């Protein structure tokens, strides 16, 4: 099997792995590297449950070949919290009961982080537009939007 050697940085750690060219980043993250926080909902870029941040850009990891992350930096949901505690988004999701089943939550958190990273004070419309690539079937989005609004208040204050 023609496996390729890939070096990258995932959640701040230098990581090396071997993968087949046909393997998606999502597959390698979940099955080979044990980062099962990124979820597979559709495997064709239409649900956002596998969202990760690649060199500062939000992408669906099911639509990235693992070989493509050579030399790149990846942030998954596992990279949001620090030893000091949860990310404000995670905290607000809990306080607002923004998750029911929770399967879409990692994707929403990563997507929302990417949003706040580039716009710490978004309008409700900007939040809804940015998160339109993340599907949630449990909540009707209301409590998710509210959590992002509250988190943005925290982030922009501390910023």
């Amino acid at each position, binding site marked *: 099997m023609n496996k390729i050697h890939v070096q990258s940085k995932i959640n701040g750690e230098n990581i090396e792995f071997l993968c087949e*060219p046909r393997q998606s980043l999502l597959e390698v993250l979940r099955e080979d590297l044990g980062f099962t926080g990124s979820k597979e909902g559709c495997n*064709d870029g239409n649900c*956002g449950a596998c*969202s990760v941040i690649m060199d500062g850009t*939000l992408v669906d990891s099911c*639509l990235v070949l693992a070989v493509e992350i050579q030399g790149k930096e990846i942030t998954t949901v596992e990279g949001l919290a620090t030893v000091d505690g949860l990310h404000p988004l995670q905290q607000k999701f809990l306080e607002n009961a923004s998750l029911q089943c929770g399967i879409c939550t990692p994707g929403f958190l990563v997507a929302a982080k990417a949003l706040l990273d580039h716009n710490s004070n978004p309008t409700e419309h*900007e939040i809804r*537009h940015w998160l*339109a*690539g993340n599907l949630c079937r449990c909540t009707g989005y209301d409590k998710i939007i509210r959590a992002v609004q509250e988190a943005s208040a925290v982030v922009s204050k501390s910023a």
Partner: protein
Amino acid sequence: MKNFEYTAPNTLRKAISILADKNGNSRILAGGTDLIVQLRGSRFQAERVVDVKNIPELNELSYGSKKGLTIGAAVPCYRIYQNADCVERYPGLIDSAAIIGGIQIQGRASFGGNVCNSSPSADTIPVLIAYGSKCEIAGPNGKRRVPIEDFCTGPGKNVLQPDELLVSIRIPTIKNASGAHYLRFIPRNEMDIAVVGAGAYVELGNRKRTFKKVRIGLAAVAPTPLFAREASELIVGREVNDATIEAAAEAAKASSKPISDMRGTAEYRTHLVGVMTKRALQGAVKRARGGFVPNAVQEN
């Protein structure tokens, strides 16, 4: 999906020689938002996937007052709407760049990839037609330029030879009193394929009261994205008013031959061609007159 060989050449020459290699068919990978899905769905298979994102020419995004705008074939959508020149001079491009898939897709998907995927419903092509863009193609025998409206030859088919690749899309400099607008109809507000898409570019004359130049591009109304030539020429020289715009809309309807599928019936699509063309022209005129027309990333 079947396994394949992955290669990421860092020069145009290397890429072309790989594509020229006859043993084994190659597919070009830019953003991958179409290719990876198609390979997975075994809609087609590839022995070799050529990642072109390391080729400088394909990552170029530059503007010059003489040469106009150059969009490297691998430049992802988000770079377009984060680029000051595009935002300031080519708002029509932003209209389309900001509605392709969701933010995640826009982080990867490129105009070049959308053009080469050559879907009849491609969201970038109508506005590129409107802007009078050209495709710069490189092959073993050098480079050639093809007007965007002549690039697609059928659903998923285009003029590229197996050993050629799209290097960039060239968009002319913008004239005074000109404006462009793209919009599409979808049942949701995001994450959808155009039921009908319409892009319009206008140059106004006679103190912005008449149409001096008009180019209308349509998506999802024919086997390829369409340059509505008759509709465009019909209103040149005419006064800018509802009747004129309505006439162009009717002509656009006449020139489109949509099919019925799960996204819409032919009858409904034809109706939408009129509506979308009218709105595209209205938006283009408004911008030509210095007005603001919102889109997915520019609320107000």
